[in-house]
């Protein structure tokens, strides 16, 4: 096994830029690793070995011509299969898009290419990003590299598993209710949900447009910041893109200092039911560590957060029922039952019944219900008011503190199959992550140890105000630095070798 796969993205970028190692060598080492671990973890829906080597050769040629390369040029990356890519299939892990070749690149895809990142393939996810375990993929479940009988979280589970298994140093994800932070937490890596509108949704297959946010996965905080910076920033093609500079996330990750910061512990997320004891213990230790590093911590109450989960499961399905109406079997994707006798409407209903999986169907119907006349005020209307209350709780909290902290997830990775037919149990995985999607602010998950019951990773969630993404990286990097000194290396060195 090549030593190259253990290196950080920042190191690989330096090696390629200085010419010590070629981008082709780096890419080949990771393609070999993918071939080795993929039969065990099933993280990818599509591996593009030839296209990746071609991109790597282009980077090497640019260097040979004397061009100055960016910090991530020649670094391999796995791309969640919900971003459009002209040179690879894009499925959203749904049968309705099987084999679809998009006619355009997502803005995030385009920016990865411009940064010289080498896209090695597309990763597995819960169908249309709806789920918390990646078991809702229409193609296959992905397995957690820490324990192959457990889920890698979701919806961006393929990306998280690929990074945790050293198949790639970086990956993209999308976070609508926790789909980056929750898989990062349960696979022992770093994942960020940037401020809503900080990263472009153009070419991201829509699930819930007011919540969907592209973000990075990495094995350390600095790498996540480098990727965050590489694909973020204003995009005129996304009307909800923020026209402001990208917060100084890389500088903050290098700063790694919390002295003088005020940190709030969200009371409702440590006192509620359903939290695993080992998760709470690692979280409490992380808060103590922050105190020791010079931060001042206080308890903060956010009473409306108790209503975030129900509000989310009205707002997200409502937006999904509208967004997924575009899958009508007419212009692209699957078409079933077009035998010359059936009407367009019949063909549409047959196609959607055959092409969507159970969770997508549940959410489309739930959203249709919540938006129905007669129910709209009680359900969707009330959920929108809860959204206001949650934003107000954050506003009040950030007048007292610089960041908020909580466990990222109530439990460690659960077993495959354990919650697959119990939607309410599955939804609880996103209990602590959802408020930031509803309010649009930034949040990160960083590893903070292993739960003693099962020796599985626990994530610390650090939440910052809108456009305060740099604070997430500053605190995350400080925690990472102190913990890695204590552990004698990254948490991932405790993971079983695959």
């Amino acid at each position: 096994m090549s030593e190259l796969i253990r290196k950080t993205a920042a190191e690989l970028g330096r090696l390629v830029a200085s010419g010590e190692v070629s981008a082709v060598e780096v890419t080949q080492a990771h393609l070999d690793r993918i071939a080795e671990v993929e039969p065990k973890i099933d993280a990818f829906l599509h591996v593009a070995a030839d296209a990746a080597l071609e991109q790597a050769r282009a980077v090497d040629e640019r260097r040979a011509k004397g061009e100055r390369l960016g910090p991530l040029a020649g670094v391999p990356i796995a791309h969640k299969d919900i971003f459009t890519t002209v040179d690879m299939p894009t499925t959203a892990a749904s049968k309705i898009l099987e084999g679809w070749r998009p006619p355009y690149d997502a803005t995030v895809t385009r920016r990865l290419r411009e940064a010289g990142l080498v896209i090695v393939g597309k990763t597995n996810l819960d169908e249309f990003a709806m789920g918390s375990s990646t078991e809702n993929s229409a193609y296959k479940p992905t397995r957690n590299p820490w324990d192959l009988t457990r889920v890698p979280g979701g919806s961006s589970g393929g990306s998280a598993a690929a990074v945790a298994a050293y198949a790639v140093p970086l990956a993209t994800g999308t976070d609508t209710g926790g789909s980056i932070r929750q898989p990062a937490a349960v696979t022992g890596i770093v994942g960020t949900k940037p401020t809503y509108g900080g990263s472009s949704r153009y070419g991201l297959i829509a699930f819930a447009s007011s919540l969907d946010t592209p973000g990075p996965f990495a094995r350390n905080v600095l790498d996540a910041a480098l990727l965050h910076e590489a694909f973020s920033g204003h995009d005129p093609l996304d009307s909800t893109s923020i026209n402001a500079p990208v917060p100084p996330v890389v500088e903050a990750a290098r700063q790694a200092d919390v002295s003088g910061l005020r940190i709030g512990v969200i009371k409702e997320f440590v006192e509620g039911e359903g939290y695993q004891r080992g998760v709470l213990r690692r979280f409490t230790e992380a808060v103590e560590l922050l105190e020791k590093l010079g931060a001042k911590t206080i308890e903060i109450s956010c009473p409306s957060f108790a209503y975030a989960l129900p509000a989310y499961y009205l707002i997200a399905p409502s937006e999904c029922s509208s967004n997924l109406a575009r899958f009508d079997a007419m212009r692209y994707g699957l078409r079933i039952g077009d035998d010359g006798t059936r009407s367009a409407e019949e063909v549409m209903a047959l196609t959607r019944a055959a092409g969507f999986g159970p969770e997508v169907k549940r959410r489309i119907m739930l959203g249709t219900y919540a938006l129905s006349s007669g129910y709209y005020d009680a359900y969707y209307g009330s959920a929108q008011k809860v959204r206001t209350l949650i934003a107000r709780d954050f506003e009040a909290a950030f007048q007292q503190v610089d960041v908020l902290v909580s466990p990222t997830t109530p439990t460690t990775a659960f077993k495959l199959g354990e919650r697959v037919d119990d939607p309410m149990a599955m939804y609880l995985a996103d209990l602590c992550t959802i408020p930031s999607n509803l309010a649009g602010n930034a949040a990160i998950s960083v590893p903070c140890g292993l739960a003693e019951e099962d020796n599985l990773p626990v994530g610390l969630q650090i939440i910052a105000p809108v456009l305060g993404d740099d604070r997430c990286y500053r605190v995350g990097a400080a925690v990472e630095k102190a913990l890695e000194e204590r552990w004698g290396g990254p948490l991932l060195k405790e993971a079983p070798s695959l």
Partner: protein
Amino acid sequence: MSAITRDEVAHLARLSRLALTDEELDHFAGQLDQIIAAVARVAEVATDDIPPSSHALPLTNVFRPDEVRPGLTPQQALDQAPAVEDDRFRVPRILGEEA
């Protein structure tokens, strides 16, 4: 009392253009009933004096310059279509027989 009946779920499936089997309807009716009962809690705190938020950012009327950019060629647009005829999307009949 259940939050939603099987007949209502069948109606939602029709509105959603999902041709579900009887077995699926039975299964989803139970699950949706449980989910709707749980999410209905939002009404407990949604009082009249709270304005609704449809969005996290205070953005309104976002404009960009109306510049001509290259679009898809007919060939690119039709490339992934399930059926094509005479440079157009071929679709099943949309109007009733009598039309």
